């Protein structure tokens, strides 16, 4: 295994700014009556002074209670968010966040959604054509793939979403809470797929999860976040023990 760095995060700070949408009514009344309104901008520091380095090929678990900043950190690494200060350096070409959101167009068919997602994830059409068969068969949707997504059950949607994002195979893979989706058989299948993705020695993987057992099983290192700050960064056994004591589980 190489000792090259894949991700280097230095003094990372990130804040959410909730700008209350401008309300014309209030703006006008403020103009007329010269009232001083409440402060329009509310700030919350979601990540505070995060420092760590991930080596290539390692799997890193992110743990912490709700609101600790796990997803925010993943989104910052995947370049959806920009740090307010500090740097995130990626020493690799492709990075992708594997989530099961609603990034689908309900009126379009499964195939069309695969193209749209694939194109956004940096593939060209020919590459998607090549993977199409694999994605469709993995999703087990059969002929439903030619129907609009709005006719799908929620389980089918999840299966399609997982199939697309798990066939991207980026150098840096970010996984957010999806260990186990769909029905029992698909859950096992998807877990095996994730294990395959992680097993690749070139790939650096970040997993955010509340499932401590799978974190111990899958990860080389664990980053413990609490209210946007790093509590500890160490091997899984050591951290999980402390973590359990800390939250009295």
């Amino acid at each position: 295994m190489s000792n090259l760095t894949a991700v280097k995060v230095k003094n990372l700070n990130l804040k959410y700014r909730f700008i209350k949408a401008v309300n014309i009514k209030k703006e006008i009344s403020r103009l007329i009556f010269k009232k001083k309104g409440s402060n329009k901008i509310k700030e919350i520091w979601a990540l505070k002074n995060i420092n760590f380095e991930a080596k290539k090929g390692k799997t890193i678990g992110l743990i912490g209670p709700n609101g600790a900043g796990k997803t925010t950190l993943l989104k910052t690494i995947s370049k959806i968010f920009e740090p307010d200060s500090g740097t995130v350096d990626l020493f690799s070409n492709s990075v992708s966040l594997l989530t099961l959101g609603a990034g689908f167009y309900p009126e379009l068919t499964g195939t069309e959604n695969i193209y749209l997602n694939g194109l956004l994830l940096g593939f060209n059409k020919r590459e998607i054509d090549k993977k199409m068969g694999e994605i469709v068969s993995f999703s087990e949707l059969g002929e439903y793939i030619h129907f609009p997504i709005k006719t799908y059950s929620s389980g089918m949607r999840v299966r399609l979403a997982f199939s697309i994002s798990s066939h991207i195979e980026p150098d840096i893979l970010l996984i957010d809470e999806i260990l186990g989706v769909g029905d029992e058989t698909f859950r096992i299948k998807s877990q095996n797929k994730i294990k395959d993705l992680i097993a690749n020695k070139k790939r650096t993987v970040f997993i955010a999860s509340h499932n401590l057992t799978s974190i111990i099983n899958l990860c080389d290192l664990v980053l413990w976040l609490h209210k946007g700050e790093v509590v500890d960064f160490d091997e899984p056994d050591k951290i999980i023990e402390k973590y359990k004591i800390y939250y009295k589980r």
Partner: protein
Amino acid sequence: MLIFKKIVNDVKSYKEYILYATRCELKIQLSSTYLGYIWWVLDPLLYMLVYMLLVMLIFKRGEENFPVFIFCALIPWKWTSKSIMDSIDSIKGKSNILNQIYISKPVLPLIKVLLNTAKFFFGIFVLLILIMLFKIPYSLHYFEFIIIFAVQFLLIFGLSLVFSHLGIFFRDIKNILIFVIRLWFYVSPGLYSLERIPQEFRFLWWLNPMTTFFISYRNIFLYNKSPLYMQLLIWTVISILIIYLGLRHLYRFDKKYMKMI
């Protein structure tokens, strides 16, 4: 200049996505009605009938070849107003996808503009059929269409960029815009010719880009004349400034939008 380089690079790298997404959105719009494509013909034609009724029957006015006269204005007008209205939601409405994958933001209003451009071409096609029906002579000035089209495209793209940005911050903008756009059409020489405006007020009409576009389209399709090149040049410069302004905002907030929506 850096900004323009950036948008060219973005369009290049997102080329396939832009084209595919435009096609898909067109398909969605078509599949949401029974008549599909036919609506693209019907919509401007019905508007034309309404205005004909209003102007010819009620006001007893109207220029020569009035249906074609209106149509020359309606088609570019629809293109402009629909693109602007669509672009308001272009970033906001994609928050689901943007929360998972990074997309360069100017790409999203661009898709909306292209979508409406496709419909615009369809409308021009219908216009040509109308011209044939009314037996208006063809002319070589048709080739100058491409120039008017290019300038108007720049202006629409610029405005769409600006409104996609504003759409995120001002929730009421859509309601205001519905009114403003209606007013904008009536102060553009769409239903009447510019000659009907008193000489001393006419300079006000030239502040409206639609005056230049409507008259230019009519010149080439109806009157066998060249478009208003001088005015088109001025609007090209203004459009590029608007595009610059829009892009500067979109790129500055590129990764900040998702923290706000």
